[in-house]
């Protein structure tokens, strides 16, 4: 069976118009997903999570950004040279999208139900009656109360969590096989966040839907992903199943992130503080991107860039000196 998604060595450049300098937002991202797989893409702000998603969807802001090399295959098909029409078809039907701010992704002047119905009208051959029935069943499926009433309600009449449920209903309306969710719960309250993630993952099971869950929050991915991918400065630095990542982090960046999380049990002791700051996309990097902040840095790290290698079973890290070795 072919992989669902295969991103190979994706590089995205960034041009700074005033100076004409060229920088790198993605420095060679590899990402593979199988059908029905739930992958969490995690990293701090600016590391390139959204740009990865936008590259897959061919929605990069161009300029200033440009895919300068790499390959993206979806269901064995090269996404590199599709027509505008083919893209509209893929984005509406095969790949669903959910973003951070549901309120700004929904059309404020169109009733919720109508927006879902429109998606169905554009991408399916259903009759008017079938569209109505399908809309109602989608709204019920994402746990929204009183679907008939929602047909005529506007986004501003719903809470943030309900809007996000409506977004999910719209994203899965045409039965996509792949869903990209970019910080889908970041704007929501904590008790609502888990509800939305639970919903997302129930949908993956019911519809054999693969999800790329993008988030800066390590804690929420714990129970909600088959695989975790950690991004730093436009590179995958670590990858593995959640249990591995949380119990045996291999890359010093992942170790640092986990040690920086405050916990009650850690009271009275200082939190680990990753020294320094994230370099800018315009910085020229010769060795490892994390070298300047790394507690284990050696000469080799500054001279050449480490590859992503398997360090434990089902666990990869981009480090010459992974933890415990």
């Amino acid at each position, binding site marked *: 069976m072919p992989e669902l998604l295969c991103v190979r060595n994706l590089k995205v450049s960034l041009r700074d118009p005033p100076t004409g300098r060229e920088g790198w937002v993605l420095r060679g991202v590899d990402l593979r997903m199988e059908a029905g797989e739930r992958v969490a893409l995690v990293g701090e702000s600016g590391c390139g999570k959204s740009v990865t998603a936008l590259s897959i969807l061919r929605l990069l802001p161009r300029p200033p950004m440009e895919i300068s090399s790499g390959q993206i295959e979806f269901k064995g098909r090269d996404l590199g040279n599709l027509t505008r029409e083919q893209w509209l078809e893929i984005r509406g039907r095969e790949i669903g999208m959910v973003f951070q701010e549901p309120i700004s992704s929904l059309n404020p002047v169109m009733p919720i139900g109508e927006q879902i119905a429109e998606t169905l009208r554009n991408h399916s051959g259903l009759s008017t009656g079938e569209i109505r029935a399908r809309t109602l069943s989608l709204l019920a499926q994402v746990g929204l109360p009183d679907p008939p009433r929602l047909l005529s309600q506007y986004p501003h009449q719903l809470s943030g969590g309900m809007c996000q449920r409506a977004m999910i209903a719209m994203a899965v309306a045409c039965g996509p096989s792949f869903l990209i969710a970019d910080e889908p719960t970041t704007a929501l309250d*904590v008790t609502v966040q888990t509800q939305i993630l639970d919903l997302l993952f129930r949908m993956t099971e019911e519809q054999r839907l693969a999800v790329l869950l993008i988030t800066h929050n390590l804690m929420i*991915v714990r129970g909600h992903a088959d695989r975790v991918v950690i991004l730093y400065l436009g590179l995958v630095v670590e990858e593995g199943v959640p249990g591995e990542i949380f119990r045996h982090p291999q890359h010093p960046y992942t170790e640092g992130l986990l040690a920086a*999380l*405050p916990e009650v049990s850690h009271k009275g002791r200082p939190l680990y503080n*990753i020294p320094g700051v994230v370099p800018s996309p315009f910085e020229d990097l010769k060795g490892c991107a994390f070298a300047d902040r790394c507690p284990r840095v050696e000469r080799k790290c500054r001279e050449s860039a480490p590859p992503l290698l398997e360090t434990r079973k089902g666990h990869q890290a981009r480090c010459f000196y992974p933890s415990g070795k």
Partner: protein
Amino acid sequence: MLLSLRKVTKHFPVQRGLWGRPTAFVKAVDMVSLEVGAGQIVGIVGESGCGKSTLGRCAVGLFEPTSGEVLWDNLEIRGLAASQKRAHQRKFQVVFQNPYASLNPRQKIKKILLEPLEVHGLLRPTERLEFVKGLLAQVGLTEEDLSKYPHEFSGGQRQRIGLARAMACQPDMIVLDEPVSSLDVSVQASVLNLLSRLNQEKGIAYLFISHDLQVVGYLSQRLLVMYLGAVVESGKTEEVLRTPRHPYTKALLAASQGRWVMIEGEPPNPAKAPWGCTFHPRCPFAEDRCRQEKQQLLGDDNAWKVACWKWDRL
């Protein structure tokens, strides 16, 4: 006691009738009592809209409560003469989530940090610059930063500037309203370490407000959990988080650890708070009594308190 709140309630009008008379109110804060001793860190946690910021503003005198009392150094604010109030106000500072919004973009850091000293007439004019340089060092910034403008700093650095400005007033207490909520984990850790150090070295007390239970739990000695304007559980932080009693606290704790949350739905609009126990529509254990009876905070003033009559049967 440095700060005492006694049955503080704050209502905002949300609807006005003819002649502009308010016809409906939101109970942003409802009968909240708390105390903060010198050098103590008290945490307040709850979801957005539960009244944390309103409570924080009442505590530093930015809002006047609709009813109830706020006491600074055992003196009720309402009873203070204007000059007395000003003198006390200096000792109770506040730092907000987005420090950028509260820093004048056209002022250099030097001016921003000198201003509180001038306003409050602290130190001799000749000593002030040295003091400000010392402040900057304490929050991890450098002398060169004095001649920069706020926009030249990152989010974490701006939060440090906001903190330095509050510290310039030589406060006894700072209300920290979501001070790390917009920061990345690694930056958050450095700001939390800084706050912890300032508390230990200077003995500054904090009323620490956050929606993140792990952050509040890490820093605070006592903890209050708020829901729809009211405290639903309070006590020593370690105890509350080891054995949370209120179903809402249990849910917050589970959510903060990425575990399954047993409650459903979202907090209702505070202007339309439910009857009886305000939490009952989301509570998996609710029964008739919960729908009819308003919950009182049960328990001991000094130990823990919980606003659930059946907490010991959950």
